[in-house]
């Protein structure tokens, strides 16, 4: 090899080496680049925090949007629900894209709903309301709202009607689900809304679930309970329910009591707890008063009262053995921390308030309260029944933040806060839901505005309620055109769906969460808030309702709360935008919110006091002596079965939203009568046969489903299906105090229906 060649070779080698080094670096970097580019990021352009539309659990969700459409939904791991939602929440994307939306206002002309303009529709409504108020007084008009309106919306309607028009005829569907719990808390603690929080689920060792099918109706809370159970297997789950629900199936102890008898059980548990000395003597001494409904009594009187409820005396009526009552009382009283949760099985009862009182009482006498994991917690059915309706006082007997219409001092306070002349608020409580529709039938209420709810499917003794609505000038603001209620409306107003408007929801545990507007409503639809503000102006109350945006309204409402023990002045819009909801009381912007009330951490508990029930003048909670009174719906030869109604996991309430979502409606099937095999045999019916079920209110036919999970003698039906209006035969008797109807117990007869069967 010549020198030249050698040099050439060296140069070539150098070039090769350099090229190689560059190539290798290039490959490494481009390899990285490829891995960065190739990541499958899913279809979402931007994620937004929000809250689920449906139930009172109020789960935080993350909504993934692409081109203005929701394409993905997931639980928000930073929210209280720790990322857990349910099947309904998982299909929120479908909800925002449903067909059949109402997009134009319509006025009924010659029996048909005819399209019109907002101007014409609002003018007609305002003139009709004005005319009736002038001719028949303010109590001739009414507002029937919803636990699904935003806080700003319910607050505005309440203020307009009570402080402006001067009628307390403001009620809504929360009357049908939460009223008993609200009255129960108020009577026991002096303040509505639960003392505890969902976080207590993570600390409880014993769960006492009564009249609540959490597995199907509050799945994320159920999952949280299961997580507790799986990480602490000694945790006891006790379920009291006439039906062997999915919840009951997963329980450790299941008490299938006869419908309508459970107050016997609670009193019997109290009897055992006191007799065995399992009550908390210090707690009873320091924090409790006993009351028989008329006056304060002593502990000895309470003990005497309980004597009628010894397990062996009540077991037969309850349909469970006395030993089981003793066992349950034992776990309730002696576990490290006992948490009770309940919903409609307790609230929708003629003894709803008494049951709520007594549940609270069990926690008080055992001292199973005011500690992590130890608390009574009533679960809410609707997304905003607590924040929107109970807290804003949008029921016919209450005013904002725990004030009562019947209390002159409370009225005066609100008149001052709202800046209206003394005497503006009527001292007469308005009509509660059942009586409101009766008053429509009697033509005492002549015009009503119904928003975001479907009473023509949800009211008990439905045929009567529907007849009554036909007599009234009925204005219905709704998202969909085909609800049972819009069919009866004189004017329908196209409303914006959640996410198409902004507002605050308040769920079961006193947590307020903001829902931001993420998309525009279709067509001419407007938010209920805008409709109400417009309506107020047309009625001449522009001075009363001066704000024009939900944010301005919130500012007023938040400041107003400072004059009460609800004080959430510290929950500013900015904080709501940033944080995953805040639990009140929260008096200032630096306050983290209150997880548990009546203990240190609650801003109203004085320094140095461990526990203080400040809702009561002497800071003592009240244990009521509440006797069991059998329901009017007693079995007889004519009506030998109990009918009880409820929800199924896939459907929510009257199904106006969920029943339009294919995955959900397919999952739930249609409305049916569900019977125990023994009843099916007695009635000689098989699956899919038609059954005719009658009560004193009416009769209806439906298909049969046979399930071993039902209790013999009890027929179950869900109420979501508008082709199966079960409320036509449901009793409309109600709790005398909370006025909440007894959906859970109706005495009925049943027989196989064949096309040839005729009445003889």
């Amino acid at each position, binding site marked *: 090899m010549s020198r030249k060649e050698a040099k050439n*070779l060296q140069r070539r080698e150098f070039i090769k080496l350099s090229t190689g080094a560059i190539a290798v670096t290039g490959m490494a970097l481009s*390899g990285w680049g490829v891995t960065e580019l190739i990541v499958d990021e899913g279809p979402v352009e931007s994620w937004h925090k929000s809250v689920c539309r449906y139930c009172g659990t109020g789960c935080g969700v993350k909504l993934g949007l692409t081109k203005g459409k929701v394409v993905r939904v997931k639980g928000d791991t930073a929210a209280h629900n720790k990322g857990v939602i349910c099947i309904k929440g998982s299909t929120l994307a479908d909800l925002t894209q449903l067909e059949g939306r109402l997009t134009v206002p319509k006025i009924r002309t010659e029996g048909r709903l005819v399209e019109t303009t907002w101007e014409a529709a609002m003018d007609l409504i305002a003139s009709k309301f004005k005319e009736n108020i002038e001719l028949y007084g303010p109590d001739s008009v009414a507002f029937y709202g919803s636990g699904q309106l935003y806080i700003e919306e319910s607050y505005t309607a309440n203020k307009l009607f009570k402080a402006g028009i001067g009628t307390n005829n403001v009620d809504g569907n929360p009357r049908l689900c939460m009223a008993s719990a609200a009255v129960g808390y108020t009577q026991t603690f002096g303040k509505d809304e639960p003392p505890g929080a969902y976080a207590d689920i993570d600390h409880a060792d014993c769960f006492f679930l009564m009249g609540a099918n959490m597995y199907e109706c509050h799945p994320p809370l159920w999952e949280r309970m299961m997580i507790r159970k799986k990480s602490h297997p000694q945790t006891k789950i006790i379920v009291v329910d006439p039906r062997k629900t999915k919840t009951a199936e997963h329980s450790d102890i299941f008490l299938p009591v006869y419908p309508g008898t459970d107050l016997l059980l609670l009193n019997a548990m109290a009897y055992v707890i006191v007799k065995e000395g399992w009550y908390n003597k210090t707690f009873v001494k320091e924090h409790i008063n006993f009351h028989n409904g008329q006056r304060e009594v002593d502990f000895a009187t309470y003990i005497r009262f309980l004597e009628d409820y010894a397990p062996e005396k009540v077991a037969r009526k309850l349909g469970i053995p006395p030993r089981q009552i003793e066992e349950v009382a034992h776990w309730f009283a002696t576990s490290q921390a006992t948490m009770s949760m309940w919903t409609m099985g307790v609230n929708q009862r003629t003894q709803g308030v008494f049951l709520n009182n007594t549940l609270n009482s069990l926690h008080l006498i055992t001292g199973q309260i005011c500690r992590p994991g130890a608390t009574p917690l009533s679960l809410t059915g609707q997304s905003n029944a607590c924040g929107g309706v109970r807290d804003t006082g949008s029921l016919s007997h209450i005013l904002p933040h725990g004030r009562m219409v019947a209390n002159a001092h409370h009225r005066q306070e609100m008149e001052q806060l709202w800046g209206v002349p003394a005497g503006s608020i009527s001292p007469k409580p308005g009509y509660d839901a059942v009586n409101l529709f009766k008053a429509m039938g009697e033509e005492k209420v002549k015009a009503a505005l119904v928003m975001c709810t479907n009473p023509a499917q949800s009211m008990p003794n439905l045929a009567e309620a529907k007849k009554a609505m036909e007599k009234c000038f009925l204005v219905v603001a709704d998202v969909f055109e085909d609800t049972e209620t819009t069919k009866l409306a004189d004017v329908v107003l196209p409303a914006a769906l959640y996410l198409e408007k902004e507002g605050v929801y308040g769920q079961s545990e006193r947590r307020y969460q903001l829902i931001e507007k993420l998309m525009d409503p279709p067509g001419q639809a407007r938010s209920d808030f805008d409709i109400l503000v417009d309506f107020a102006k047309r009625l001449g109350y522009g001075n009363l309702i001066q704000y024009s945006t939900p944010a301005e309204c919130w500012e007023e409402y938040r400041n107003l709360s400072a004059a009460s023990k609800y004080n959430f002045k510290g929950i500013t819009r900015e904080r709501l935008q940033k944080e995953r909801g805040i639990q009140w009381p929260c008096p200032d912007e630096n306050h983290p919110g209150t997880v548990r009330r009546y203990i240190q951490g609650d801003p109203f508990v004085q320094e140095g006091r461990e526990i203080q029930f400040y809702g009561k003048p002497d800071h003592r909670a009240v244990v009521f002596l509440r006797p069991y009174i059998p329901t009017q719906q007693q079995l007889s030869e004519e009506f030998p079965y109990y009918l009880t109604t409820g929800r199924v996991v896939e459907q929510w309430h009257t199904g106006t939203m969920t029943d339009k979502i294919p995955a959900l409606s397919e999952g739930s099937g249609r409305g049916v009568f569900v019977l125990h095999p023994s009843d099916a045999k007695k009635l000689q019916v098989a699956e899919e046969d038609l059954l005719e079920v009658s009560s004193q209110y009416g009769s209806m036919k439906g298909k049969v489903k046979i399930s071993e999970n039902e209790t013999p003698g009890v027929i179950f039906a869900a109420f979501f299906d508008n082709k199966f209006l079960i409320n036509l035969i449901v009793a409309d008797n109600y709790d005398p105090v909370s006025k909440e109807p007894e959906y859970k117990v109706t005495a009925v007869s049943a027989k196989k229906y064949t096309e040839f069967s005729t009445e003889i």
Partner: protein
Amino acid sequence: MRSLKTELIFILLGVLISIVYIFYPTPFMMTLFVFVAHPLFIFAMISFLLEVKKDLKDKEVL
């Protein structure tokens, strides 16, 4: 066929990275193995095969 120095160096480096990685699978070594050893091998092999091709062409085998 001319010098295979570069190929030798690259393969040597690649092999060393591989064996160190096999015994000490730390994130750093794993990254070296995935993002450096592979390109080293690839470059060296391609370059070697090109040399072979050229060689065969020169000898008119191809």
